[in-house]
């Protein structure tokens, strides 16, 4: 490039010093391209927040619903007025439903994920890397509707045969979500375990620890923040999952009074209702409020992840 510049100009030294070289122009171009991409994304994110939040607040500002009653009310009856002629918007059953499926599935999935990850990293790292890792990554990419469909055709009838009832409910949702978030938690836990430096293992074994003692006393403790991050990631995915849960949870907007009774989550009521309500009606506004709750929760999960991410139990040695 530089050579060609020299050849084309009449006063080569001055020209080349004063004029921007093509490389510099490319540099500028690249920089402005990535800057404008950044600005575009920033604008999109900001607009989504503004849009969802302002629509979500309309239920309180324009329709005059009491926010406290909205969050803690237990009766969800948006379309048919009760005997007093009032519609009731109590989102507590859905909030409880969402938290129940999220916490339960994370509770069940975490031990499995940690065990799988330990096997892949500590016990059989060759085999684990070659076979298990691609399998887990493949599982992460399966669309949620597939999980939901399997839940509807396999899990629900199985629960019905085993426990009676309709089979739909929190338990079915938990099982489907457990399978869904297991690969997410596993692959992030694998990363966390790999981040533990090798001298931790060597040191533990050198002072006479068994393999189990090394794993339990050293590796897992050092990797705790990473594993927690993995769990919270899994929970965030579970909390926001709509389709798969909607297919198996039964979508009855009532307080869950058992794991086998039909219940509902924020997402399932939202996806079911949005096509049946018209823009500008109370029924539509409260769905936006549910969306706002979901957005706030995902922010909350993000905050937790950042908070945990700052802590680490690993020191890099070299005193």
């Amino acid at each position, binding site marked *: 490039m530089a050579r060609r510049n020299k050849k084309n100009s009449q006063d080569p030294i001055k020209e080349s010093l004063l004029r921007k070289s093509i490389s510099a122009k490319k540099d500028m171009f690249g920089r402005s391209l990535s800057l404008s991409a950044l600005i575009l994304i920033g604008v999109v994110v900001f607009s989504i927040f*503004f*849009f969802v*939040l*302002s*629509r*979500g*607040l*309309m239920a*309180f*500002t*324009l329709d005059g619903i009491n926010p406290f009653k909205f969050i803690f009310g237990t009766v969800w*009856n*948006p*379309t*048919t007025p*009760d*005997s007093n002629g009032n519609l009731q918007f109590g989102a507590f059953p859905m909030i409880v439903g969402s938290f129940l499926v999220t916490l339960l599935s994370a509770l069940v999935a975490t031990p499995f994920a940690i065990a799988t990850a330990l096997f892949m990293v500590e016990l059989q790292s060759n085999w684990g890397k070659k076979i298990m890792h691609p399998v887990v990554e493949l599982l992460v990419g399966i669309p949620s509707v597939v999980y939901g469909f399997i839940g*509807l055709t396999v899990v629900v*009838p199985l629960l*019905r045969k085993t426990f009676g*009832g*309709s*089979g*739909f409910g929190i338990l079915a949702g938990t099982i489907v979500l457990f399978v869904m978030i297991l690969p997410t938690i596993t692959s992030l836990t694998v990363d966390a375990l790999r981040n533990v430096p090798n001298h931790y293992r060597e040191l533990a074994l050198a002072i006479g620890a068994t393999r189990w003692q090394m794993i339990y006393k050293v590796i897992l403790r050092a990797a705790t923040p990473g594993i927690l991050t993995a769990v919270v990631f899994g929970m965030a995915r579970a909390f926001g999952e709509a389709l798969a849960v*909607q*297919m198996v949870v*039964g*979508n*009855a*907007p*009532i307080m869950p009074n058992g794991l086998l009774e*039909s219940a*509902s989550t924020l997402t399932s009521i939202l*996806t*079911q*209702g*949005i*096509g*049946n*309500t*018209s*823009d*500008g*009606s*109370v*029924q*539509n506004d409260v769905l936006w409020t549910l969306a706002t709750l979901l957005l706030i929760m995902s922010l909350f999960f993000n905050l937790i992840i950042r908070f945990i991410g700052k802590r680490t139990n690993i020191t890099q040695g070299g005193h």
Partner: protein
Amino acid sequence: MKKNLIRIGIILIAVLALYYGSTHRGLTSNTVSSTHATTKNILIVGSTALQPLVEKASSMYEKENPNTSISVQGGGSGAGLTQVQAGSVQIGDSDIFASQEEGIKPSKIVDHKVAVVGIAPVVNKDINVSNLSMKQLRDIFTGKITNWKDVGGPDMAITVVNRSSGSGTRTVFEDSVLKGETAVKAQEQDSNGTVQKIISSTPGSISYLASGYISGKNLRAVKVDNVSLTTENIENNKWKIWGYEHMYTHGKAEGQTASFIKYFKSKKVQNGIVKELGYIPLAGMKVDKNSQGKVTSK
């Protein structure tokens, strides 16, 4: 100090923006007006129950009028009404009258009834109940009867499956059956297809389906007051649970939109695919039903 001031400023602006945004519906709502219903490209959005019928009719229409293109989308009755009111589509399909939907101004849009749909209670095949009185049906769906033995069936709990609140089929069913009583809180599913699948596979379950979906060997329709769902019974209102399928246009239908609706109401479509897909042609109806559910003979 300066940093804090900037932070407070940003928060203040955000709060003000949110306050303004949340009190002015026009800012974020779908209220753009208005395209006239005259274009060659017809966009149809709305009711999923009517969607298969409209899709078939539009592909037939496109064959006969090659320079018109029609695209048909689902989304639900509410979406159809919202978008046609805003003028962003030419036709909004709906299972219910516009006046039954909150937030819709019926004066802005014009109703075209295009077909009649019958809705019947369906039960899982294990339930040997073939007839229910209207009162029994109401008591089941309001939660007063919870066991099949109370209506002459086996000793088995009743699993009620509802459509999601606001769905057109549910609105028609509840208007005809519940008489203003509140439905029992039960499982809700968001389409005829899902309900069909669940009733077929869940012992002791009951729900309701549009006539086009009542098929399959694991479920059966139930007579109400000893009347079964047939075209003739709906036409003379012996079968009470039925409603209209509507096409709404923004203002008066013009141009291609008008001629498509006219085509849809023609004998060819009404006696052809409308019947084939389990709907009932308008022409045979001996009664009228208004948006309050009042029935008058023609």
